[in-house]
């Protein structure tokens, strides 16, 4: 089995993307609502990744 190497950021963004798509599809009814909710989730995920990343960086000193 070949081994894939992704950075922490790439892994987090990939996971955020697939989860956002699934959450958008499964929780909303119309296509525009699904798209909007998916993008909103992705924004929150990415914001959290960067926010927590900076928090850990600053907290670590």
């Amino acid at each position, binding site marked *: *089995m*070949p*081994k*894939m*190497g*992704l950075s*922490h950021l790439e*892994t987090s963004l*990939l*996971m955020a993307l*697939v*989860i956002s*798509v*699934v*959450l958008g*599809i*499964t929780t909303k*009814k*119309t296509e525009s609502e699904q798209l909007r909710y998916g993008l909103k989730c992705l924004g929150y995920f990415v914001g959290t990744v960067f926010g927590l990343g900076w928090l850990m960086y600053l907290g670590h000193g």
Partner: protein
Amino acid sequence: MTETAKRIWSVLSTAGKWGPVVALAWIIPGGGHFWMGKRLRGALLFACVMISFLVGMLMHGYLFEWQTGDLFTTIIYCGGYIANLANGIPYLFARWLGYSEPDVAGHMVDYGTKFLVCAGLMNILAMVDAFEIATGEKD
């Protein structure tokens, strides 16, 4: 009979309608949506679950075994096993082809394990969505 009991009975009495859809949604991620003509949704769900599962495997993630012990171990291992099993065909194929990576320390393996679990959890959401569409609760 209470409202909840009536609703449960009504859902159970139509199991012949939604049962095969949910079973297909489990076996093939997005399959239930495809069957009901929701091709784009089905394709997107299939792609998301498969990408997550394949990335998890390529990162040599750990597939959980059923293991009981203290409460924490039971929740992690049995929950992980159920989530892995929820992947359907990809999981069964991986097991059949002998995929069995050890649970070793390391961030790549750890991420891979999370991807494998996450793929199963996403497929559970897809199954619930297929159920709601099949029972007419959702368009």
